[in-house]
């Protein structure tokens, strides 16, 4: 009998531990960070450092989580969705060429049809034997690079040994209508197909695999970010960010304080969303879904779509 009494708290403990591990989580609004005079379009992280492209003011800024500008790099021509990475690519400072062999910030310059590469204060340009027309987004993953080539309605992708191009203007699966952002993952390439109002997924040969968000009434799907478990797609005109599972079903719709969002990224357990027009960063945090269930009726984030 005594042994049995010992067992009861142990069993309860195990059950409660298991419940905690399986407790579903969701993104909850945390705060708005005002950015002084910055209209952010793209966001990228270098460790915990936050970099924003300020398209309206032709610059890149590094900010902290209080919105303070720590430093600014000027004289870009409409910098767009940026990314950090390290790829052995041929670059030029317009006088000589060299091979990039260190981590750098890749900046698509929409107005200059070029990809600028910044490390420390040195600026080079990526050498591409193909002409871009308004590059709007870039992703760097190991030695791979993908560029969303806005007016050419295509993705230009370097697979580590050669450049390939895929996509054409259109509305069918695999077509684009002004792609604005792109992200390479271990197996795939995800694209924000802005004015087709959807996200698209391709393999690394450029073969179409899937599309998502088609039925969610997007109005300009401008920014995309793919984490280990989720895909985030910004809905610019409708002031929303939709969170999809890896099965492409909608898990959550975020609205609180989101206004003309252009990009999104995950920093630890925080989701950072750029509000372009208002010049803000909106921060959401992962929290237990059960806690929020009590106030479901009051919270606009609780439009969960478990399709």
């Amino acid at each position, binding site marked *: 009998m005594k042994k049995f009494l010992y067992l009861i708290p142990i069993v309860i403990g195990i059950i409660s531990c298991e419940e905690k591990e399986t407790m579903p989580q969701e993104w909850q609004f945390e705060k708005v960070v005002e950015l002084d005079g910055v209209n952010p379009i793209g966001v990228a992280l270098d460790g915990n450092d936050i970099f924003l492209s300020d*398209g309206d003011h032709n610059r890149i800024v590094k900010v902290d989580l209080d919105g303070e500008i720590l430093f600014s790099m000027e004289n870009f021509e409409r910098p767009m969705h940026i990314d950090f990475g390290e790829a052995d690519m041929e670059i030029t400072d317009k006088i000589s060429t060299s091979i990039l062999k260190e981590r750098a910030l890749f900046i698509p310059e929409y107005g200059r049809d070029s990809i600028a590469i910044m490390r420390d204060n040195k600026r080079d340009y990526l050498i591409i034997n193909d002409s871009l027309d*308004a590059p709007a987004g870039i992703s760097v993953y190991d030695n791979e690079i993908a560029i969303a080539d806005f007016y050419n309605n295509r993705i230009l992708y370097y697979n580590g040994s050669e450049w390939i191009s895929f996509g054409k203007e259109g509305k069918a699966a695999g077509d684009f209508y002004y792609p604005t952002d792109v992200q390479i993952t271990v197996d795939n390439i995800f694209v924000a197909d802005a004015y087709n109002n959807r996200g698209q997924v391709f393999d690394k040969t450029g073969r179409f695999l899937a599309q998502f968000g088609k039925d969610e009434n997007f109005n300009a799907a401008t920014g995309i970010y793919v984490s280990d478990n989720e895909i985030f797609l910004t809905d610019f005109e409708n002031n929303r960010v939709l969170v999809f599972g890896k099965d492409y079903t909608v898990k959550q719709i975020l609205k609180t304080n989101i206004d003309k969002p252009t990009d999104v990224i995950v920093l630890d357990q925080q989701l950072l969303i750029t509000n372009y027009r208002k010049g803000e960063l909106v921060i959401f945090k992962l929290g237990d879904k059960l806690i929020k269930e009590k106030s479901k009726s009051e919270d606009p984030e609780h439009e969960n779509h478990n399709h």
Partner: protein
Amino acid sequence: MKNTIFIATIIFGLFAFAKADAQTKKDRDQFEVQVDGLGCPFCAYGLEKKFKEFKGIKDVKIEIETGDFSFSYPASKNLTMDAVVEQVKKAGYTPNLATITRANGAVETNAKETVAIKQGNLTNSELYVNGKCGMCKARIEKTVSDLPGVASATWDVKTGMLTLEHDTSLTTKKAVANAVANAGHDTKTVKSDGATYDALPACCHYKRTK
């Protein structure tokens, strides 16, 4: 003595630079256009970029926040106000006040004299107009406001409803529908032609109904 020569050289250099600059400005007309509806950065930057590609154009600059759009163009080509306004429209912007400062110092604007509208003749009307963004809003409202006898025009992005106050003896609802269709926006009764719709900026490509 050496210092004097050095200073004289600098002054001469500055004088020559200023003269060359003045000469350049003398050869070029300066254009300033106030444009509406730059809500979508991808389209606004794109239109700026496309404008830069016009032969002979220089100093293209657009302040996204204020909508102040400026450029210079060779005076010898005598670019007219109508051509500028048309070109700005063709590029997708909605032009408001435009000012040309000619190389010879003459100033031209497109400011119109406002014709007084008799309040007693005004009717409130509503009309569904297809569109989808802030740039559509600017275009639709400007198109309708420019019609004779229209006192006010407001278009709602979410519902697509255009609300206007107008003197029906000067502009009918049918005329409003025709005008917005000519600007690229369908109504329930009048459809825009394919080429005009296609020429709208990407963000303005609303879903058309058959």
